[in-house]
């Protein structure tokens, strides 16, 4: 079983206009930089992107927004991207802002083969508009559906040729959830190792969920808020 592809261009070769993508990461931490660059190069349009954030103006999903390749974003927080806010307020971009835990759990549901979940997040707010509310043990919950994404694109620290993945620190975030939720899952890793070299007890995502894997050539790993302590 070998899931290795030559690089980002081959990994995304069948992502076409109108596709729905999940992109891992929190802020700029743990984002699939190489695949995003390949998508920009390929110029696919009308994408629906499910990702916690929308990058910043000149990095991450911000690069796709700059080229107007995104038709719809499904995110929880987009505060660091002025171009995003401009496209949203002008109506060029469709945006579904949803609670972060709901975003995570809708990924989880997809990866676990469950059609929907109930969550209390958003009850009594505009997030609840048009949604089924059900009361369990005296508390109201919203019905939220599992995501249905064509591709999940994730970034891991290490991966092996069978697609098993290990994440590092808070770069884990949405990556393992999205890896489990995509119909086709693409993983870019900092270090690709032969099957058998990862400790089976320490693997975060089982290779069964991963269809294509490659070692990224360059990772900028940009820092949004460089907070340094003197002592």
């Amino acid at each position, binding site marked *: 079983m070998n899931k290795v592809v030559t690089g980002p261009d081959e990994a995304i070769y069948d992502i076409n206009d109108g596709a729905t993508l999940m992109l891992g990461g929190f802020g700029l931490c743990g984002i699939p930089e190489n695949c995003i660059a390949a998508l920009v190069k390929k110029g696919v349009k009308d994408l629906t992107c499910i990702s916690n954030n929308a990058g910043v103006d000149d990095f991450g999903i911000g690069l796709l927004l700059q080229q107007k390749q995104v038709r719809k974003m499904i995110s929880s927080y987009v505060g660091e991207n002025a171009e995003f806010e401009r496209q949203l307020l002008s109506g060029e971009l469709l945006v579904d802002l949803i609670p972060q835990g709901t975003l995570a759990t809708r990924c989880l549901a997809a990866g676990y083969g469950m059609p929907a979940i109930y969550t209390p997040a958003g009850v*009594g707010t505009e997030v609840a508009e048009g949604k089924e509310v059900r009361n369990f043990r005296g508390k109201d919950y919203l019905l939220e559906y599992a995501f249905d994404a064509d591709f999940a694109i994730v970034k891991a620290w290490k991966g092996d040729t069978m697609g098993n993945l290990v994440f590092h620190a808070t770069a884990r975030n949405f990556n393992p959830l999205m890896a489990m939720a995509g119909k086709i899952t693409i993983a870019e890793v900092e270090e690709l190792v032969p099957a058998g070299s990862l400790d089976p007890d320490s693997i975060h995502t089982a290779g069964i969920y991963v269809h294509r894997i490659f070692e990224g050539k360059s990772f900028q790993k940009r820092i949004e808020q460089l907070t*340094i302590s003197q002592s």
Partner: protein
Amino acid sequence: MPLTKEQIAQRIARELKHGFYVNLGIGIPTLVANYIPPGVDVVLQSENGLLGMGPFPTADKVDPDLINAGKQIITTIKGSVFFDSAVSFGMIRAGKVDLTVLGAMEVNDQGDIANWKIPGKMVKGMGGAMDLVASARNIIVAMMHTNPRGASKLLSRCELPLTGVRCVKKVVTDLAVLDITPDGFLLRERAPGVTVEEIQSKTAGKLVIPSEVPEIVL
């Protein structure tokens, strides 16, 4: 004198109890970590996937893969653990986090909170705030008593889109400490030198004033 933002954080830090797991939001809430009383052992949760958030690193210890929910570079501490975002919000939803401190644009006298959107102007998103306020056992809001235009942020009815309903338990502002009770905002403490009359005049929601309102002790 009204409290500074640091003093608001310092006052809220006194609400931390030994053994608490605490989630601190962005802004004034983040500062609470600087004032945890000696001998009070708390673990800070960062909803992007970390329990046991440490201080900012020195220049030689920077790891771009290690950030908090405000996207600041941080460190781990002894006993820290990483997890994915579903586990993170699972522990929040299941009520394992003892205390949540977050900022707000508006709070009303029933404990509703608005802090994520100004229609037509500012649309940053709710992040994890809606999940936190829907599930946390105890929610304290840290904010200024009035907005930059001088209007009260403590209302009888929130005008901005809500983040959550009937969830806030306590509000600490630059002027006062207030509990949310079935009768409205109960004025517990006032900033040193700030009169009850001033607080009353800057509180648009229902304010309950007990016979004694002590000054905040920091």
